[in-house]
């Protein structure tokens, strides 16, 4: 990826800001997502809640399904690949996917190395729990970052933890004198030039979204207030009682996250949200966020 391509890919992420990206598993759900006002859809075979329940190896989706979704909507189509699975990423690039999510929600293909995203023309989004992890992924060529959260739980607590951590580490870094930055880079395993860039600009060089456990309009508004620039919703929509009204409400909440009276109005009468799981009941080895490094 040359620097011009990298710029264009970061630019696409900027166009998604303030919007909601929804997990969909078929063309019909994709059409509902677009109808609700989603800025993009994420094509995957099973939503995270089902991956969690059913177990087994979770892989990239069938290209046939991805093509059907591409045909069904005019908004950008994203899809997930396993961490480190270079070939899955090549297949998605060949399909003309608009954004690849190298995702901890799928079963990792490589426990040592993430994909060299700079070798691709299409943009990548990656999950991060803290600033060091975000900068490692950006160093590998990611054009967009999202919190990992804990996907498929309908529980926002991990996304909050990850967003707060990244934002507070950015604030901390921007107060450091230059001579402390190399040590910061060493201790946090982050590329030095990116550490300098964050210290100077007081923000990540790419757009930062929230993901992993967002289930209600209030969850979306909370994440935006914490500094998120947009929202991924996975299981939260199609695992709820009434997907279309809930999807619409989350779109509205992302746009008007700072207007409580509007949040009150859109939160009304949506039916049951997905049931959700307390993170403490998930064994550490079963937590998606612990995948990748």
């Amino acid at each position, binding site marked *: 990826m040359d620097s*011009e391509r990298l*710029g*264009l*890919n970061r*630019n*696409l992420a*900027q*166009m*998604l*800001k*303030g*919007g909601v990206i929804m997990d969909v598993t078929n063309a019909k759900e994709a059409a509902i997502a*677009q109808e*609700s*006002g*989603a*800025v*993009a859809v994420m094509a995957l075979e099973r939503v995270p809640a089902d991956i969690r329940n059913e177990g087994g190896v979770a892989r990239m989706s069938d290209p046939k399904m991805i093509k059907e979704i591409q045909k069904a909507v*005019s*908004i*950008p189509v994203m899809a997930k690949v396993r961490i480190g699975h270079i070939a899955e990423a090549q297949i998605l*690039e060949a399909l*003309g*996917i*608009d*954004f690849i999510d190298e995702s901890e929600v799928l079963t990792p293909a490589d426990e040592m190395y993430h994909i060299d995203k700079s070798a691709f*023309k*299409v*943009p990548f989004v990656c999950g991060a729990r803290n600033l060091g992890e975000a900068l490692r992924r950006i160093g590998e060529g990611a054009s967009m970052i999202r919190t990992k959260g804990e996907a498929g739980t309908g529980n926002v607590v991990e996304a909050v933890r990850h967003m707060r951590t990244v934002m507070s580490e950015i604030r901390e870094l921007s107060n450091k004198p230059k001579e402390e930055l190399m040590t910061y880079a060493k201790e946090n395993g982050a590329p030095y030039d990116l550490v300098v860039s964050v210290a100077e600009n007081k923000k990540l060089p790419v757009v930062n979204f929230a993901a992993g456990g967002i289930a209600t309009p209030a969850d979306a508004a909370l994440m935006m207030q914490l500094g998120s620039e947009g929202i991924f919703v996975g299981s939260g929509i199609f695992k709820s009682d009434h997907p279309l009204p809930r999807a*619409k409400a989350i*779109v*509205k909440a*992302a*746009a*008007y996250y700072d207007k409580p009276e*509007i949040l009150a109005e859109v939160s009304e009468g949506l039916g049951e949200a997905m049931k959700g799981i307390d993170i403490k009941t998930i064994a550490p080895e079963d937590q998606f966020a612990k995948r990748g490094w």
Partner: protein
Amino acid sequence: MAKDLQVGVLSLQGSVEEHRSMLGKIKNVKPIEVKSLTALESVNGIILPGGESTTISKLLIEFGLFEPLKQRIKQGLPVWGTCAGMILLAKDVIGENPHLGLMDITVRRNAYGRQINSFTVSENIPALSEQRIELPFIRAPWIENVGKDVEVLCSLNKHIVAAKERNMLVTSFHPELTDCLAVHQYFIEKMIRAVENNK
């Protein structure tokens, strides 16, 4: 001293911050976040940013801003649509229903293809600027046809990518993603200031 111009950016979704930060660099201009009726009524001009046109259009309708915005533009409010903003303003959008339907242009969405086909190019657009300007096209639309009152400002390989009709300016590309203020300055000086001076 010239009075500060209140220049709005429709702030529902998309490249809102980028436009506001560009406006903030121009003297005597106050960038205004527009996502309420009150804010819409207060502005001397408005930018419809890049983003997803389907999302922005739905939010305009849901929050009762669609008709008031349409009326203000009809009455002469200067407006500039970048990318998604161009789609919102067009009278015809190939393959789907138009949105505000105010400008006499026919637009093709995602005309250049998917993200892999996004590109940037440096061009001379004498109508907008004396210097060459950088034009990033992100899953961009182009204009296939224009009505008789529409002035074509820039074509690229036979496709129209910038045009103007009375108080309406549209660009397929995103000056807000570059360091060049020329198009923002053009919109403010030639389109907003011109109207204000005639009041």
